Every structure is written in C-alpha cells, then in structure tokens.
C-alpha cells in the first residue's frame, strides 16, 4: 500500500479537530467552548430599544438654566425673563447694559459646550452641535450601563445589553420561563427610577384637592399622587434630595413584616437629610419615585446616619425590583420598544426537534443516494460530508457562534449542497474513465478539471453570504455564518480530503470493478 500522503493527514487532522471541538456542544458538557443556542431555539426575550434622547437634552438645558441663575446670583448680575425655548435654548434679558460684556465672558467661561449670542441686552444660550451629540451619546451609554446593571442584578443567565447602531439598544435575555417574569424584566428596564425626597407644603396642603397645577406652580410647589390611593400631595418642587446621593438600596421588612426598601445616602446626602429632618420635626416628608408618592411619614425626630426607608404596600417581588432599579441609578432619558421578540421555551424546543428531524432525514437521504449512485466513490463523498458537519460544529463552537433556527436551516441546506463538489469531481472522473484514461490519471485530472468550477462557484456564493452577514440582523446573521462556514468546510473536505483518500487507496482500486468503485460499467476501460 502507498504511504500516507499529506492530503489524508490534513483531512485526518481536520476530522479530529472537528470531532474534538464539537463534543462539548453535542454533549452539552460543562467545560469547553460551546455553540450558544439563539433565543429562537432556547426561548427568551429579544428587544431593540430606542431612547428619547430629546428628554436628556431638555434636562441638560434645564440644568443650564439653573447654572445661569446660580452664576448671575453669585455675581449679583441682575437679569429677567429666563425662559426655555423649544427645549433647545434658553433666553434671558439683562437689565444693566454695563454688565453685558462681563456676563458674556462669565457664561462662556462657566458653561461648557454652549454658544452664547447676545443682541444688546437680549441673550440666548444654546448647546453646540457637538454638545448635543455628546449628550445624546452620553444618555444612550448611560442607559446601556444602567440596564445591564439592572439585568445582572436580577440574576438571569447571561443577558446581553449592547448599543446597536447610532441610537438603539439591543437587549437579549435568554431562558425566561414565564410571561410574568418577562413582564417584570420589561418593567425593570423601563423604570426611570428617579427618586426624590420632597417636603410636604404643610401650610397649603389642606387645599390640595381644589388647587390647580398653575396655582401650585406659583407657590413653587407641585401636586403628585399617591401610588396606591391616588390621594394628592402638595410638595415643594425643589426636592430635599434625589437619587444621585444614594449609595445602596436593599429589601427589608417593617414591624408588620411588610416588605420595605432601605436605602443608604452618601455623606453629603446624609448631612442634608439630617439637617432637613432636624428643622422639620412634626412635618411630613414624601418619598417620591418616578413622580409618584410612595409614603409620606411624619418626621418625629432628627434622622442622622443617612438611612431612609420606603414603605408602600409592596409585593415582595416589586420591592426587590425597585431596589435593583434604585441601586443601578436613574435613566437619563426614557427608553421605548422598537422591536420585541419573545419565544417561549417550549416553542424553542419544538423548533430544535423539527429541524433536527429534517436534518437527520435529509442527511440519510443524501447519504443513501450518493452510495447508490456512485458506489464506493459515494461512500468517500459521505465521509467528507460527515467530516464537514463536524467541522461546521467545531468552528461554530470555537467562535462561540450562536445557532439560530435559520442557522439550523443553513446547516440542513449545506448538507444538500456540500456533496456538490464531490458530485462535480465524481462526474469528471467518470467522464475521463469513459474516455478510457487510466484510473490514476482519471482521478488526478478529475480533481484538477473540477477545481476551477468548485472554486469560482463557492467564492461567488461566499460573496452573497458575506453581504448577508454584513447587512443581516440576529437570526439572518446566524444563517449567513453557518452557510459561510459550511462552504469553506466543504471545500476543504471535498477538494483536499477525498483527493487524499483516493491517492491513499489507489492501489486497491481495481480496474475491472469500476461498477463498485465509481458506479459505472467497465466498458470504458481499455
């Protein structure tokens, strides 16, 4: 027998590589790199979120207005008619013409990323294009981080949160078992978690039910409802504290064994809170979350140490989710759903089952067909086909690629198409045998004649697959990936692998058994 040639050795290596690296995925073992199942196969929640970045910009403008007021009050510059225009800029008028230059210099020094324009005494301050863009990007990055923190703390297996494109957030949470869980997750993500501690305006609160919003505003107050009873409270609009001074939030239980949320304030917050409660004994302080009053206890004594409790007739799970949201911080701008796909675990399992059946059946059909049509040449092609399947699995495992339903379809399709190269080669070999060439020559020329066709055909298909990968989303990407890997693997197994096998076993192939070896009658051989 002829010694082993480099093609067989290479193919054997590829085969071993394929088998070794696909074992973790096939056995679902704990160790080793595995193919991840896509959400459509294992069940889960996929969401594409948009962000209302204009809200983040608006609040930037608001804080700019507050800064202008602070700076001018500090320097005793007198101004009037401070307004926000279209949520894009602020305008005001100075009263003293002598202070125009000073005011302008001051604003330009203190306010970063803004353009200050004045027309005599009339001033307008707007954000620069770059600053608007930076604020948007900041809002989206902050949202990505916040949502990721929240989901991680919720304790789910491997949630993905990533920025997608310019202004979208992709959230993928596998392994959600029930619709209730899904709803909880959606609520957790959506929660702005904007916490405020606000003083109740005790002098006027008695009239709150008859008071208009405008009147409340004129006193510097706001009217907010109770989360459970809907009862209204008149609160001082400027909060005592907000969530930015919070360091921790945990679920606890009160004396009636009701769930509550305990939170801890940082040093500055603790001091403000201590001072405030010290001077407000006998008055009420409202705990406000996302513009709803959760509780408004009467202050009995000065509270030091910065520990505060929210009670609000919570369900335990609700308290738990709220604590997570508070810990991970507020969203700078609200998010909304652009696309949502949720697949129940049973549907995913059904999909795997159905496409596996199709894969196995299709595979068996192709294998039988090849043997019937080509004889031993078909068997060799089938060895390549099996090697091909293992290689696809191995490469996908190593890349940690995600297998989706279209991806499974891609593998099924690859099985059908993978034999193509072998068919081309076998047909070429048969042709040459019919012409009366020797077996060795037929095999060698068969391979070299078939090569350009296989190469050109596969490269063009790869071009299509690459475009699909670049432009596709989610499941489509998975399909393009499996197809590309399949094409490359089939080129290796068919062109190198089977060629090597033929060279290796050539001495065994006997001329008078062409029917057995290549499925043709021997009349061609001279």
């Amino acid at each position, binding site marked *: 027998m002829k010694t082993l040639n480099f093609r067989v050795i290479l193919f054997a290596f590829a085969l071993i590589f394929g088998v070794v690296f696909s074992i973790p995925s096939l056995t679902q073992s704990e160790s080793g790199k595995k193919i991840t199942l896509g959400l459509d196969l294992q069940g889960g929640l996929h969401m594409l979120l948009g962000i209302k970045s204009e809200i983040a910009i608006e609040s930037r403008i608001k804080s700019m207005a507050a800064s202008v007021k602070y700076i001018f009050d500090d320097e005793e510059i007198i101004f009037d008619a401070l307004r926000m225009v279209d949520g894009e800029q602020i305008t005001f008028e100075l009263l003293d013409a002598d202070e125009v230059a000073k005011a302008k210099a001051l604003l330009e020094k203190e306010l970063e990323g803004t353009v200050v324009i004045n027309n005599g005494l009339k001033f307008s301050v707007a954000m620069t294009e770059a600053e608007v863009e930076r604020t948007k990007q900041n809002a989206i990055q902050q949202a990505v981080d916040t949502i990721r923190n929240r989901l991680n703390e919720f304790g789910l297996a491997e949630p993905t949160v990533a920025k997608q494109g310019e202004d979208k957030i992709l959230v993928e949470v596998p392994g959600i078992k029930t619709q209730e869980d899904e709803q909880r997750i959606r609520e957790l993500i959506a929660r702005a978690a904007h916490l405020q501690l606000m003083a109740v305006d005790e002098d006027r609160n008695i009239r709150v039910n008859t008071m208009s919003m405008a009147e409340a505003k004129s006193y510097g107050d706001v009217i907010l409802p109770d989360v459970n009873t809907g009862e209204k409270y008149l609160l001082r609009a400027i909060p005592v504290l907000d969530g930015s001074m919070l360091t921790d939030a945990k679920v606890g239980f009160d004396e009636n064994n009701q769930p509550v949320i305990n939170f801890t304030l940082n040093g500055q917050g603790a001091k403000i809170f201590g001072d405030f409660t010290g001077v407000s004994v006998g008055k009420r302080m409202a705990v406000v979350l996302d513009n709803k009053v959760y509780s408004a206890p009467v202050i009995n004594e000065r509270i030091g140490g910065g520990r505060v409790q929210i009670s609000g007739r919570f369900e335990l799970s609700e308290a738990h989710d709220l604590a997570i949201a508070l810990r991970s911080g507020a969203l700078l701008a609200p998010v909304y759903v652009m696309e949502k796909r949720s697949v129940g675990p049973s549907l995913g399992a059904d999909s795997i089952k159905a496409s596996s059946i199709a894969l196995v059946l299709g595979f068996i059909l192709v294998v039988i067909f090849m043997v019937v049509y080509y004889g031993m040449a078909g068997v060799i092609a089938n060895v390549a086909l099996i090697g091909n399947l293992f290689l696809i699995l191995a490469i996908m495992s190593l890349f940690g690629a995600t297998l989706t339903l279209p991806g499974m379809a891609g593998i099924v399709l690859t099985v059908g198409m993978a034999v193509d190269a072998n068919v081309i080669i076998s047909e070429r070999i048969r042709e040459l045998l019919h012409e009366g060439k020797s077996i060795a020559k037929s095999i060698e020329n068969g391979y070299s004649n078939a090569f350009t066709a296989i190469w050109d055909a596969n490269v*063009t298909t790869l071009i299509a697959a690459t475009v699909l990968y670049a432009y596709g989303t989610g499941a489509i990407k998975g399909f393009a990936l499996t197809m590309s890997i399949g094409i490359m693997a089939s080129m290796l197994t068919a062109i190198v692998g089977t060629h090597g096998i033929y060279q290796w076993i050539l001495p065994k192939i006997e001329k008078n058994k062409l029917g057995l070896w290549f499925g043709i009658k021997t009349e061609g051989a001279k």
Partner: protein
Amino acid sequence: MEIFKYKKPLSLMDKSKRFGLLSVTLLILSLGLMIGKGFNYGIDFAGGTLIQVQYEGKAPIEKVREAIDSDASYEGATVTFFGSEDEVVIRTKTSSKALGVDVGDQIRALLQGTGDFEVRRVDMVGAKVGSELREKGLMAMVLAIIGILIYVSFRFEWRFAVASVMALMHDVTIAMGMIVLFNVEVNLDILAALLTILGYSLNDTIIVFDRIREGIRTIKDPDLGAIIDESVTRTLSRTTLTSLTTFFVVLTLYLFGGEIINGFSFTLLVGVIVGTYSSIFVASPILMWLGFSVGGFREKEAEKLKREKEKEKMRAMYENGTL
C-alpha cells in the same frame, strides 16, 4: 448507477427561443403578481404584532376572534390556525412602544376565559424598524449582485457576469412571484431564502459557465452554440444530481421542519427548481444573445497566456542573473 450518460450533445440552443418564451412569460406573470397583488409583508417589514398561542386541545378559534374583536383597538386583527389545530396566530397592525404593558400582555388578558392556553411567541416590530429592515434587505440584495458582477467579470468576462446576474434576477423574480401567488408572508427569513437562492442559482450557473470557458479552449468548433450545447450536456448530470440532493433536504425541511420555517423552505424549494432550470436553459442563451464572441475570447486568452509566459521568462532570466 448512471442516469445522465453522455452520448452526444443535446441541441439546447436550437430550442432556446422556446425556453426564452417560457421564461419571459413567467417573468411577466411574476411581475404582474408583484405589482397587481403585492407582497404580503409580515411584521418584520410592515410593523405590527404577532402572537402565537397554543391551546390544550383544539383551539377555539371563533372564541378567540370574538375576544379580540371585543377590543376596538385591535380592529383588523386576523386570527388563523398555525400548523396544527392546537395553535393559532393572531396578527395585528398595532404595536406598542411602552415597555411596561405591551400588546402581548393586553391580548393575553383578552383571551382569559377562552380555554387553557400558553403564549408561545410574541413578536412586535415598530413601523420605523420595519422600513429600516426593508431598506437594509434591498441594499443587501443590490450589494450582493454588484459583488458577484465584479468577481465574475474578473474571473470570466463581463458578458458572463451580466448573463449570470440576469439569470439570477430571473430566478429571484420568479421565486418572488411564487411567494406572492401562494401568499407567503414576507419576513426576514424569506429575505434570507431569496439571498440563498441568489447564491445557489449562481453556483449552478458558474459551474456551467466554467465548462463553457473550458469548452472554448478545448473544443475545436468555433460555433458558440455548439460549445454551449456540449458544455451544458456535459454538466447536465452534475446540475441535476446536486439539485436533487439539495431538493431532498429542502423538501424534508419543508415537510418536517415545522410551521415557523415553512415559508423559508417553500421559497428555497421554488428557488432550487427555478435555479436548476435557469442554469440549464436560460443562462447560456443570454450569453449568446449578448453577442459573446468565441474568437475574441480566444484571442484575449492567448494574449493573457503570452503575457504570463513573458513574465515567467523575465523571472527566469532574473533568477538566473542574466538580466
């Protein structure tokens, strides 16, 4: 076993007018369907919500319809069986942006009391995302075709590239016509199927063209028609066999792959058939029709060969230090 044993070239070129007529008719019908009836865009492209509900036992579809109709905001929602009698799919144009409560939750609430059910899938796509996906899909198609044009022009000749792309468009158009005819819901996976047809049919065509390219070099007869007949006949067994194996697996996928993958496998099934037909009967006549000249190609090839030989000579001289 040998089914397509080569004896003598089939006279395909003589019959090319007939196949041309058939193709043009199919194309016109397909275009007519696309313009007249239009695609049945699924939620991926049109936006909206799809809810798949599985009941224990036969789904009470009338009750489900009543329950959905009781809410005015779901006007125009459709309820259909999905795969089996146990499952229904509810499609509505409504999509909600709110994270807290979405259409899926609302419909689940409406269905309370229609029996024991499990919501297996909720897909919601906003209108903006839908139009973005559609644009991206079209873009992918165009880019793939440009890439193919460039590669084939480089490897073969521009007329081969144009002919293969025309054959591709022929296949994809007819597949789209069938999608409209059978009212298949067009979603992202259908787009993937169409792009696969692109790849598959191209694969077929390129292999035939490769043989024609080879034929031009080896066959003495300078008549392109004869070369094409010979080459197509020579590749006929391969074309049919590969199509057959692919057809087997796509068919098993269609029959056993489950309802979700049905549209995808249907599209592929059509694609395999049309792709095979076009690479045998359509692609090569286009080549002829484009005025491909065997003599010209041979001259160019000879020149290329000459240049290569000269280069080799130069290299040899350089390596031998005689330059």
